[in-house]
């Protein structure tokens, strides 16, 4: 399959802060690629660079074989964009908005079909300003699809949807995928990424901290075990404790967490070390991790 998106060493800085800090990934044609991460992780920045809305500070970006920062009309004719937040002319009706924005595309989905698709039949002739937040979000979605795009960017498409609408928009996205469209979506919701995506990249503080299919993320982390304990004050280096461990070590203040797939040997090593140093490990815990825990650990725990 051909590559739809290729990103190498992408960096975006705002003054001193690095919103995107050197990420690389690629998306195949026909794939659903999800970018998962907490607030401020750099999801929108990344996606908007791919759309051509922002220019990268550094790195290489190719979208449909084109540099999006100089994409122009023919590039935007082939992509559909649902921004995280962008206004719609409040005084126009849903139907008018779709007609006006749709007119610029070389091929387009009929307005009635789109209205049906996002379930706004009863609201078709109402002014956008009178719609509820979730209904306006559905107009956003319809506007992203109006040009019948081959590549669709969805920045938190279901935020603000009620559970039913969320499920049905999942069906809509699955349906688009089955039509061979390539989809890049961002989300805060693990279940959404798991349900929709062929591949997930977990973004935290501008870096990709994990990437793979939902199943592989689950099997590499989800079946793992977390060992955690409070470390008493010790003299000297901790390397004889930490270096031999097979798992991934995270520390916060004095709380040490080890995410491991061989809990027995790691635990044996830890306890042996503690006994040898005549230390008691406070609040020693061993627990199996689920995907949600992994995610929260990856992104620093404060989603």
């Amino acid at each position, binding site marked *: 399959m051909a590559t739809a998106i290729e990103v190498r060493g992408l960096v975006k800085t705002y003054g001193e802060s690095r919103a995107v800090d050197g990420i690389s990934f690629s998306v195949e044609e026909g794939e659903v690629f999800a970018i998962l991460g907490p607030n401020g992780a750099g999801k929108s920045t990344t996606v908007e660079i791919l759309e051509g809305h922002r220019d990268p500070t550094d790195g290489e970006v190719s979208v449909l074989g084109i540099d999006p920062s100089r994409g122009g009309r023919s590039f935007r004719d082939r992509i559909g964009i649902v921004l995280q937040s962008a206004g719609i002319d409040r005084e126009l009706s849903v139907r008018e908005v779709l007609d006006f924005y749709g*007119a610029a595309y070389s091929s387009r989905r009929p307005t009635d079909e789109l209205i049906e698709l996002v379930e706004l039949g009863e609201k078709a002739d109402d002014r956008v300003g009178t719609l509820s937040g979730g209904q306006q979000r559905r107009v956003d979605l319809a506007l992203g699809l109006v040009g019948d795009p081959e590549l669709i960017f969805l920045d938190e498409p279901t935020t603000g949807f009620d559970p039913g609408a969320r499920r049905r928009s999942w069906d809509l996205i699955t349906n688009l995928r089955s039509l061979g469209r390539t989809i890049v979506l961002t989300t805060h919701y693990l279940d959404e990424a798991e349900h929709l995506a062929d591949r997930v990249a977990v973004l935290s503080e501008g870096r990709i901290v994990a990437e793979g299919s939902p199943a592989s993320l689950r099997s590499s982390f989800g079946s793992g075990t977390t060992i955690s304990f409070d470390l008493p004050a010790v003299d000297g280096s901790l390397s004889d404790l930490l270096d031999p461990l097979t798992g991934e070590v995270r520390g916060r203040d004095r709380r040490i967490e080890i995410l491991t797939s061989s809990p027995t040997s790691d635990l044996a090593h830890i306890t042996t070390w503690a006994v040898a140093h005549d230390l008691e490990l406070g609040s020693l815990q061993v627990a199996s991790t689920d995907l949600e825990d992994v995610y929260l650990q990856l992104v620093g725990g404060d989603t």
Partner: protein
Amino acid sequence: MTRRSTPALVLLHIRAQNRLFWRVPIGAFFTLALPVIMLVLFVALFGNEPEGSVVGTITPAQFYTPALAVFSVGSATYTNIAINLSTRREEGILRRVRGTPLPPWVYMAGAVGSAVWIGVIALVVMVGLGVIAYDVNLEVAKLPAMALTFVVGSMCFAMLGIALAGVAKSASSASALANATILPMAFISNIFINLGTNPPEWLQVLGDLLPLRHFGLAFAEAMSPFSETPAILWDRLGVLLLWTAVGALLARWRFRWDPVPGANGRTTRRGRRTTA
């Protein structure tokens, strides 16, 4: 369905902007109704007896009709474009437009075309009222001068409106800046007040530097009973063209499609404009 031709897209967007204009009654009131109310009030206040002015001895209606017609064209173009574009930028609508294959200039042409069309309506209403109710002079031979002056003047103020939307960070500051520029300019440009034949020199100089006075005088000439056909004041139109160029450069330099981060994110519809 296939893409429409570019002229069809321009027309479509002019129509869309027109719809948006008529659906916000407050904007329509300030642009169309307020100058008409002013004409009626001024004539009621000052009577309609001839008196001296920069353009000869004429009635107050003969003075105010072209002056307020020009003012309402300025309001329809400069003020409305500045406020509309900056509001739509702030709301993220311009950003959305930039993500579609619509060429940006087509969107701009829609905004300008609609504003100029509203200007035509404002002008016809004002001149029509002056001619029918107050016996203001109108000569067929001078219609080309009126039309040319309108085209040059409205394009000038439309371009300055885009420039102002580029300079202003938020919709509310665009609204404040638009009013803070056009209203004082109107006072020193023989629009609201007949400055007579001998205004203070510094006012005269300031008025001559700014575009509105030239627009007003050129239009008054085209409606004057004393002017000689074709009644086109080329030097005045030349100044307007200069200002159009200034506006175009400023717009090119400063206009952005993305919202300004941190600028005022919320503007109430009614709070958009406090005065004309």
